[in-house]
Structures are given as C-alpha cells and as structure tokens.
C-alpha cells in the first residue's frame, strides 16, 4: 500500500500537477483485477481437472479390472471343481456346462480392449489370454452350452489336464492387475493432492489480491469522501460569501433608500419653515436669500426623491401598480403642471391627443405621470424659445418590442431646444450624466431623471427612445402598451358606491383606527385636506363595526390599541365576506422594524406606513391605489381649524367616549392646565429647541395640515385630551411598573407625531425600561416628564404655535 500521506494528497491536488501519482491507483487496481481474473481462471481449471479425473475413474472402474481378474480366476476354479466332482461322481453335465459358459463370459472382460490404457501387462497377458481362448475353443464342442448328451469321462480328464498349467498365469494376472491399479490409484491420489495444494495456493493468492483490492478501494473511497467534503466546504464558503455579498448590497440599497426617506423628513420641515419665513416681513436681501435657500432645498428634495426611486429600482422594491385611469385627464394634469414654467420662459406648450387614444387605460398613473413630467421638464429646461409639445398617438399595433395585450401607445415629447449631438445622446440615459459638464452647470438638475424614466418605462414593458439634432431640438418617444380599462374602475377594485359616483367627486371613504385622539385628529385633518371623507374608530372592535356598517375604500390601522389591536382587527376583518373582507388596510406603527412589517403583511394588511406619517407618503399610496380618485377630491377651501376638526360624527359607536369628542375649539387650547403666562417670560437656552422639538416633523406637519391644523392637534395633546399623560404620570407616581409600558407607548406615539422630541425620547425610554424601574427611577421620570412638557409648551408658545 502507498504510504499514509496518500489520502491527503488528492485534497491538495486541485492544481494540474502530479499526473503520475494520480493514475497510479488506477494502475494498481487494473493489475489486481487482472491478477484476480487469472487466479479465478486457474482455480476453475484445477477444479475442472479434478472433476474430469473423478469422471475418468468412474468410467474405467465401472467394472473394476481387478475384480474382473478375480472373477476370472474364481470362475476358473469353479469350473475345475465342477469337472473334478463330475469325474468322481459321473452324472448330468448341465452344471459343468453352465460353469463353462460363465467362465467363457468372463474372458472378454479382461480382454486387451478392456485392459488397454489401464495396465501395461506386456506379452504375458497376451499369451495367457490366448491360452485361455485356446482352452475354450478346444473344449467348446463338448463343454459348451450348445452341446448335449453325456460328457465322456475322458473329455473331463482332458479338460482338467488342460486347465492345470493355466491356474498360475491367471493368478499372476490378477496380482499384476491389482498392483498396477494400486499404483494408478496412488498416482491419481498424488495428482489430486497436488492439484488441491495448487488450489489452496491459488486461493491464498486470490485472497491476498482481494484484500489488496479491498484496501485500495477503501483508500479510493476515503479519498473521494475527503474530496467531496472539501468541495462541500468550498461550496459552503462560496454560498456564505455570496449571501454576505448579497446581504451587503441589500443593506446598502436599503440604507440608501432609508436615508433618502429619512432625509426627506427634515427637508420637508425645512421647506415648511422657509415657507413660514416667507410670510414674515423681510427686507429685499433677506427675501432673496430666502428664495435661494428654498430653491436649494427644493432641488435637494428632487434629488432625494430621485435617489429614493433609483435605490428602490435597484433593490427591486419599486412596484408598478396598474389601475384604471383617465388618460386624457392625466395628460391634462401634466400639461397644467408644466404650464407655469413654460409660460415663464415664453414657450408655447402644446398637448395633442389623437382621437384613437382610449380614454380609460390600465396603468400606474403616478409612474406614468412621473415619466412624462420628467420628459416635459427636460424639454422646457433645455428650450429657450419655440415650443414644447406632448403628442400622444397610437403606435404600431403589432409592435413586437411591446409584449402583452392592449393599445400600443406613443407619447412623444418634442421641443425646439438646444438638442444633442451623437456623443451626448449616447451618455443620455447614464446616471448623473447630463448633456455635458457645461449644460450641467447651466441648467442644474439631478441627472437621474432620464435613467429613472427609462427604468420605469421598462418596468411597464415599454421603452424610451430619443432623436435629436443639435440646435434644432429633441424628440423623446415613450412607447407603452396599455390595456383598456372599464370606465372609472379597475378590475379587482371596489366599485364606487352610489352616492359618491355623483358628478362632484367627494373623495375616498377612509377609516382611521387609532386609540390616541391626537393621532386620530392629525390623520383626520390630513386626509380631509386631501379632500377625502374620514371616519374614525378608537380600537379594532369599533373599526369592525364601522366596516360592517359601510365598507370604506381604505382603512388606516394603528397596531397598538386597547380592546382589540390592529393585528387582531385585521384578522377579524379578513374573515368577513367580500367586499368587507377585502378592504385594503394600511398599517400605521412607530416600529420601523422589518419583522413588524412582515408581521402585518402576514395577517393580511396591504401596506405599511411608519409613524410619524408623511403626507406625501399617504398621497402616493392613495394615488397608487386609487389613481385619479385619490386626487379627485374637492380641492376645498384652505381648511380652517374648525373645518379641519374631525367633528364629523363618526359612524362608530366607539367604546371610548373620547373618540368623537375631540374638542373643536380653535388653537388656543381649552383651559390648559399649564400656565400660559410663565412661558412668555421664561428663558431658553440655545439648544433647547433642538433638544425638545423636532422642527423637521413640525414643519412637515405644517405642510401637511397647515399651521392651524397643527395648532389644533398640538393643543389637544398639550391639553392632554386623551388623558394619556396624566395616566402615565399617575403610573409613575404610584410606581405601577406593570402599566408603564403601555401608557408610555401611547404618549410616545403622540409626542412623535407632534414633533416633541424630548417627550418622545423619554416616553420611549420608559416604554423600554419601565419594567425595571425603581421607585426613584419612577419619581425622576415623572419629574422629567413634567419638566419636558413645560419646556415644550413654553417653547411652542414662544414660537407662536400656541
């Protein structure tokens, strides 16, 4: 056997190297196999020889030759006795004659043809046989069976006389035969012994070969096993590496998406603050600075939106949600969005819709609008004079590059702008590339728009093509295949109910389920401003009743609620028969964890929004889901605080009487327990605003629900309409640890919605760690909470929110 190092060799033998050593085991196997075959053949030959030896013995010993000679002698003696008896007592010759015949019949059995090849007798045998033959021939006439009549005594005497000299030779023959046969038996036994020895030797040899074969096989097997294990290890490592790489890439995309999303929040706040600032009295310089700041912020927001789209596209999280939409209306929207900027540059804006273009199609309105808006913005941006046109017509119906069914449509955005040369066009759809560096400086923009547009077009199964001549203009063609849809309604969507199909659209029927009155109020203001009808419910059970009474278009569902939480409510709703069981449900939660998202999807919720809720997220969601209807609300008058109030009686008999009883009073909160006066005189540190307030969220809220709306909900919160602060303080004062978690959670959600950063953080800490609080901890937390509430109130008063 090869040395013990052998089995480690194949592992290291992954590189093309020692070929010799690789085929050596095969060589050995081959040699052993051939040896085995030869050994088997030899054994078979030996055994065949033994069998034939035995068969030969049987054949030749059939009537043992020695026995034959013995019988011959015996019969000879019998005959002699009979003759002698007859000589003494003459009588019938029958007995003698039969003996003669018997003796004669024995003679051929020892004849030359029988003996031949068995025993070498030599001439004596011949002579003796001849003498016996002569004897028989001589006396045949008288002694033979054929003879009849009495036998003369003279004949008997003659026969006896003839027999006398024959006895000794016959006896000799028997002896010689016996010796010869014994000799032969000895020889045969020797041969058999030799062959058996040979057989034993061969068997030993064969056993050794088999052993070697088994050892080699075992070694090969071990080698193979080792190699397989190694391969498995390598595969596992590769798998892990791939998973890690994928996870890293995913994490980056997710991070990018999250960051873009997170960045938008403070930016929105900033925009809101800037907008507020514009309303104040400013000198010209300040106004100019402010305008520049707003432009920068707006650009930044565009950039963030684009990055968000890109990262969503890259991580595959951007879904196209087709719904029925009114195409001419969508085109009009795009046109009116562009009208101002075109007019400000003195450009003619044209919209031409060919008559064969269907009115209702199935498409993702938001994304289609995004593409067209991007193309149109570019056209306006790069055109100094002349016109920008959007022409929509039917494309080639049998266009093979557009798979699927439906109308092949062509959206052409044409301008008379600076155009592009070949090189520019080649770079056009690449990320962050604009025409060239100079255009970038001159025209601004993110450089992501066209890439997003093309990606979106391709996601919809279409594409964007471009043709351009420098200084004459460009022509972007979006080709899409859009299926026709039944008017006003996409398949699988709830049919609009009777009263709301009337000509003045009344928006969507939305149900908001939240246990915290401030959150309910906030959502109600936000949604009503968008022109929708809002019903409110304070917990899952109430929501169930509201849905049973009338199925809303959509339900916003908080997760943490008393009586019946959002998950249970969703399960109960899904158990209802259609259409109530199929009502779309949006989860609202302050938990941004991935597993929360999975959990809400698992129970059958359709969407997920994390608190604090962003107005644009809701708008996007509603537009995605309901298309034109989401924006088909009456663009009502700027909401006054009174109107913004969710006074509209809810159809729900909420178990908590506080739900519909949200006070409707104008901003100055009702008999707030907090003394308003000290706030005015109070001193604040420079860092207090940043510590206590989240101006981003507050700005966002002002943008979303207007300043008066914010004032209203803020008043509600600081007035502790829900009693949640009092409840939390009571729990802290009595150190009732069991209640802390739930009560702190309620305060945390509301504070987060209001942008009250310090209170939110404190409530979050109590929620997280309250179960382990000591009595001192409770006292300290209560004191901090009271102080934070005072500070926040004071700050907000000073800033004019209260």
């Amino acid at each position: 056997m090869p040395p013990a190092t052998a089995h480690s060799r194949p592992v290291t033998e992954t590189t093309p190297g020692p070929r010799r050593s690789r085929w050596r085991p095969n060589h050995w196997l081959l040699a052993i196999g051939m040896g085995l075959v030869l050994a088997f053949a030899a054994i078979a030959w030996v055994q065949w020889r033994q069998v034939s030896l035995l068969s030969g013995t049987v054949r030749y010993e059939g009537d043992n030759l020695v026995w034959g000679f013995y019988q011959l002698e015996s019969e000879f003696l019998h005959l002699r006795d009979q003759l002698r008896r007859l000589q003494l007592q003459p009588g019938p010759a029958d007995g003698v004659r039969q003996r003669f015949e018997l003796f004669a019949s024995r003679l051929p059995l020892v004849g030359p043809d029988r003996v031949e090849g068995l025993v070498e007798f030599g001439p004596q045998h011949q002579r003796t046989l001849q003498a016996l033959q002569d004897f028989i021939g001589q006396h045949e006439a008288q002694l033979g069976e054929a003879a009849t009549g009495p036998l003369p005594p003279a004949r008997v005497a003659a026969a006896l006389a003839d027999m006398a000299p024959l006895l000794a030779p016959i006896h000799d023959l028997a002896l010689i035969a016996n010796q010869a046969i014994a000799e032969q038996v000895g020889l045969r036994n020797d041969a058999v012994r030799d062959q058996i020895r040979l057989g034993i030797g061969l068997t030993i040899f064969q056993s050794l070969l088999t052993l070697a074969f088994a050892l080699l096989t075992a070694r090969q097997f071990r080698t193979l096993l080792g190699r397989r294990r190694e391969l498995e290890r390598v595969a596992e490592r590769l798998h892990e590496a791939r998973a890690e790489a994928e996870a890293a890439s995913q994490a980056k995309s997710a991070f990018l998406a999250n960051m873009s999303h997170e960045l938008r929040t403070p930016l929105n706040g900033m925009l809101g603050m800037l907008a507020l600032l514009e309303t104040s009295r400013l000198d010209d310089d300040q106004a100019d600075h402010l305008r520049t700041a707003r432009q920068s912020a707006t650009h930044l927001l565009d950039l963030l939106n684009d990055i968000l789209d890109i990262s969503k596209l890259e991580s595959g999280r951007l879904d196209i949600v087709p719904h029925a939409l009114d195409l001419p209306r969508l085109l009009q929207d795009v046109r009116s969005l562009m009208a101002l900027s075109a007019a400000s540059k003195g450009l003619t804006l044209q919209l031409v819709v060919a008559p064969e273009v269907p009115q209702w199609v199935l498409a993702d309105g938001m994304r289609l609008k995004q593409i067209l808006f991007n193309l149109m913005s570019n056209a306006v941006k790069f055109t100094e004079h002349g016109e920008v046109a959007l022409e929509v017509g039917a494309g080639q119906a049998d266009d093979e590059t557009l798979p699927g069914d439906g109308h092949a449509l062509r959206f052409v955005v044409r301008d008379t702008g600076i155009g592009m040369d070949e090189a520019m066009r080649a770079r056009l759809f690449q990320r962050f590339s604009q025409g060239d560096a100079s255009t970038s400086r001159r025209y601004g923009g993110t450089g992501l728009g066209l890439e997003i547009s093309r990606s979106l077009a391709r996601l919809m199964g279409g594409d964007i093509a471009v043709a351009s001549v420098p200084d004459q203009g460009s022509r972007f063609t979006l080709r899409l295949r859009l299926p026709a849809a039944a008017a006003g309604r996409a398949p699988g969507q709830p049919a609009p109910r009777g009263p709301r199909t009337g000509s003045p659209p009344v928006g969507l029927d939305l149900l908001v389920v939240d246990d915290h009155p401030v959150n309910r109020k906030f959502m109600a203001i936000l949604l009503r401003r968008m022109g929708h009808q809002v019903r409110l419910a304070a917990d899952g059970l109430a929501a169930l009743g509201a849905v049973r009474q009338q199925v809303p278009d959509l339900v916003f569902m908080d997760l943490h609620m008393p009586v019946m939480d959002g998950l249970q409510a969703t399960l109960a709703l899904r158990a209802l028969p259609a259409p109530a069981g199929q009502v779309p449900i949006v989860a609202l939660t302050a938990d941004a964890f991935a597993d929360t998202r999975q959990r809400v999807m698992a129970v059958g919720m359709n969407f997920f929004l994390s608190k604090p809720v962003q107005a644009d997220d809701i708008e996007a969601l509603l537009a995605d889901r309901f298309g034109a209807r989401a924006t088909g609300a009456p663009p009502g008058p700027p909401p006054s605080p009174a109107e913004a109030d969710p006074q509209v009686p809810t159809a729900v008999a909420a178990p908590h009487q506080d739900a519909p009883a949200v006070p409707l009073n104008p901003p100055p909160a009702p008999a707030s327990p907090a003394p308003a006066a000290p706030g005015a005189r109070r001193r604040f540190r420079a860092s207090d605003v940043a510590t206590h307030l989240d101006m981003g969220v507050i700005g966002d809220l002002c943008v979303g629900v207007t300043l008066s709306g914010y004032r209203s909900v803020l008043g509600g919160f600081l007035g502790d309409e829900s009693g949640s602060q009092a409840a939390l303080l009571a729990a802290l004062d009595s150190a009732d640890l069991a209640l802390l978690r739930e009560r702190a959670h309620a305060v945390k959600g509301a504070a987060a919605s209001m942008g009250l950063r310090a209170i939110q953080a404190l409530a979050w800490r109590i929620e997280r760690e309250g179960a382990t609080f000591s009595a001192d901890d409770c006292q300290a937390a209560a004191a901090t909470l009271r102080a934070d509430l005072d500070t926040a109130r004071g700050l907000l008063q000073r800033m004019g929110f209260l």
Partner: protein
Amino acid sequence: MPSAHAPARRLLLALLLAATGPAALALDAPKGKVVLSISGKIGPGNAAGRADFDMAMLEALPQHSFATSTPWFKVARKFTGPLLRDVLAAAGAQGATLVAVALNDYKVEIPAEDARKFKVVLATRLDDKPMAVREKGPLFIIYPYDDSDDLRSERYYSRSAWQLRKIEVR
C-alpha cells in the same frame, strides 16, 4: 438402509401392486425352462414359496427397449425386456429391498424404490437377440444410464446384475 423409510416404501409398493391387481393373483406355472425365480415377500407364486418365470412369461409382459451406453460394451447397445417393476408386480412382491442373485452367485442389493423411480429393464434381448450366458444373459438388469448423470455412477453400475437368476424380496 434407513429403516424409518421402509414402511412407507412398502406401502407405496403395495399401492402400486394393488393397481395392477389380478395379474399378481393368477400367475401361471412356467412351461419352459425357469430363467428367473422370485422369492421372499411375494404373492401366492406358482411354486413352493417362489414365483418362477420362463422366458415366454417374461416376454409376455409389456416390452420396453432402449439403447444406452454401459461400462461393459464399447458402444451403446439396445436392450429389450419387461420393466423390473412389472415383473415384481407379476410376482406380487411387497418388499423394500431386492437381492439380485446371478448364475455365478454374485449378489447385490437393490432398493425396491429403484424399480419405481427408474425405468429399470429386465433385459432379455441385446440388440433384439436373446443373450447367451456367455453374453451376460439370459437376463440383465439395465438402468437407463443415458437418462441421467446420477445413474452413471459406480452405485448403479454395481446394481446392474447380469446373468440374473434369482430375486429375493426382503
């Protein structure tokens, strides 16, 4: 001889004989020279405790013939005669063992089963001619050696008695 098997064999033979029935009871007396005497456990017989057969009686039984090679002749020879089992049945034999005795007092034991298992012929003719004593006649027990390898062995060759004169049924 495994004695445990003996009763079973006897029973079988009895059944066999019962099937051939009346023939055993009415055995005629031999008219010519007696060539075969069966004694021992036999039927009524036709002599004192014996069933004697002359050549005519043997040739009156159903004849069978086949050619087979034997150790005693260089080539295959044709043997003709009644089946041993028919002869035994004619004598009403009911034993488990047959002792065949030749003219020269050669004796050999033959299990009665052999007569039933094999088509053992009591040959009266060799190549269609009667056999003289010198030609191992007049009666020769012949097994169908060419039918099976097992039969071509010393055991059966030794049971193949020639110059047969008597059968003793035990």
